[in-house]
């Protein structure tokens, strides 16, 4: 079965003030089936937001997609004409940016902002537009959709704004949703509500979802597959349960060890030191050879300094880029 989204060898770089290109993503490849939920896990500087923006060609003016293909429903998005691209954005692929507080227009009512997206893709009369918007808001705000519809963003709570962003993303019935850190600024209980909402959307609408986060534990129960990004490269990608229970890439293992252990089971490990990843996140503007994780890797080898590992299959739809797993 052809996957809904196929990304092959994506290379993205940013130009700095001198015009030199600094790589942000290198050779990123993955695919996504219809109705599948993929979690992209990465820390600051890993390139996860760049990836989200690059898929729809929404990079800032100094960003450039240097190589690769992004096949969506069989067509390469990187070759699409501006009209096609506009049709796909919001129409076939819904995008939820970070920071709900600044992703909404400050002086427009949120109901209007949702209708605008619908109006941009379907030519409907004013009445139909209004009805469809109200129906959608009613599903996301069962209690007070009418009040929310005429509110302004600054009158809503963080969780409510997040729901409005979700409404904007799904109003035209897309087949893929990309959500960049959708729960970052929310309380734990609100986080869980929003994640539950994504699951409901997947079930009811058959949506495929890419969720970007920096907390691997967050999507443990929601995501089908997990993609771990480090320094702009895919370190590991595989079924969530497998990757979390038995991570193959040294970075994945180290990252999971950083999380405070499941406290219900912990006895006497409280206030103990956490195992950290020594060193700092890599500076991608410096040219380096070899594996990007090598300076901090606990199991590094000689060849890791000079060569970059390729992706190798280690299980059912499970790949790792590490010399510990020769092809």
């Amino acid at each position: 079965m052809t996957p809904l989204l196929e990304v092959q060898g994506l290379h993205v770089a940013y130009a700095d003030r001198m015009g030199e290109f600094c790589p942000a993503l290198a050779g990123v490849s993955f695919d996504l089936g219809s109705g599948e939920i993929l979690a992209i896990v990465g820390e600051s500087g890993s390139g996860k937001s760049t990836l989200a923006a690059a898929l729809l060609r929404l990079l800032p003016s100094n960003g450039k997609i240097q190589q690769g293909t992004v096949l969506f429903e069989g067509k390469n998005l990187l070759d699409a004409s501006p009209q096609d691209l506009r049709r796909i954005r919001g129409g076939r692929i819904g995008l939820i940016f970070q920071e709900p507080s600044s992703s909404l227009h400050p002086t427009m009512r949120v109901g209007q902002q949702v209708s605008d997206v619908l109006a941009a893709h379907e030519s409907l009369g004013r009445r139909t537009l209004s009805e469809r918007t109200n129906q959608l808001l009613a599903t996301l705000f069962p209690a007070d959709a009418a009040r929310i519809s005429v509110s302004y963003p600054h009158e809503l709570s963080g969780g409510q704004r997040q729901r409005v962003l979700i409404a904007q993303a799904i109003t035209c019935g897309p087949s893929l949703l990309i959500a960049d850190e959708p729960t970052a600024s929310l309380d734990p209980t609100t986080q869980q509500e929003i994640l539950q909402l994504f699951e409901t959307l997947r079930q009811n609408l058959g949506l495929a979802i890419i969720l970007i986060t920096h907390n691997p534990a967050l999507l443990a129960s929601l995501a089908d597959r997990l993609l771990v990004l480090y320094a702009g490269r895919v370190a590991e990608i595989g079924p969530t349960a497998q990757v979390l229970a038995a991570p193959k890439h040294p970075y994945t293992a180290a990252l999971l060890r950083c999380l405070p252990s499941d406290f219900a089971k912990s006895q006497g490990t409280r206030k103990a030191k956490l195992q950290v990843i020594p060193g700092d996140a890599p500076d991608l503007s410096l040219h380096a050879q070899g594996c990007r994780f090598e300076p901090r890797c606990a199991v590094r080898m000689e060849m890791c300094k000079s060569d970059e590992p390729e992706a190798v299959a280690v299980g059912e739809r499970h790949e790792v880029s590490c010399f510990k797993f020769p092809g």
Partner: protein
Amino acid sequence: MRPLLRVENLVKHYAAGRPSPPKNKFPALDGVSLSIRARTTLALVGESGSGKSTLARCIACLEHPSSGSIWFEGVDVAGLHENQQRLLRPQIQLVFQDPASSLNPRWTALEIVSEPFFVQGRFSKQERSDKACAWLDHVGISRKMVSRRADELSGGQKQRLAIARALALEPKLIVLDEALSALDYSVQAQISNLLLELQSSLGLTYLFITHDFAMAAHLADEIAVMDHGRIVESGPAERILRSPGHHATRSLLAATPRVPETPTILVNF
């Protein structure tokens, strides 16, 4: 033994003129009482709007409570005059969530940590520089980085800098208001290790405010849970985690994301 900090029946109404969210019809702090023993960590856990930041600010003498008392080493801080409070300030320091807004981005790390010594006015330039470098070293900022400007540092480094600045005054109590929440998890691990080490070597007391129960569970000796301006449950960390009583505690615990089975060894080669 007398606790280092004791708060009794603290009440704080929202300041007039600030648009309060429509759902808040209760005071920011509604009769809060707690105590912290020296050299221990109390974690204050709650959702946003529960009043934890307001409590932190009152304890750090940045805001005046409407009523109630705050006893620090036996002295009623809330009742003190402004000048006397100022003498007490070095002993209670605050580290904020967002280092970008609490550190002057154009100052170098050295300047930021030297500033408290400058304000005290007792030290020569060389002395200030030496003391500042010593504290920066203590938090893991190497000599090479001391002359970097704050906006050139990473998130983790900025928080280390904020901690160094707080330590420079040799406080007894450090209030960490969501100080780790904005950091990556690998960086959170580094900073939490740093905090633990500083606690044991310098005898610090922490008030750790967060909505992340997992980190609270890891760092705290005692946990207090806040909801709607009140402390709804408090006690030793073990007890709260094992058998939470109040529904707010239980829902927070349930909402905390956790990895099903944390691996402790790498796959065998």
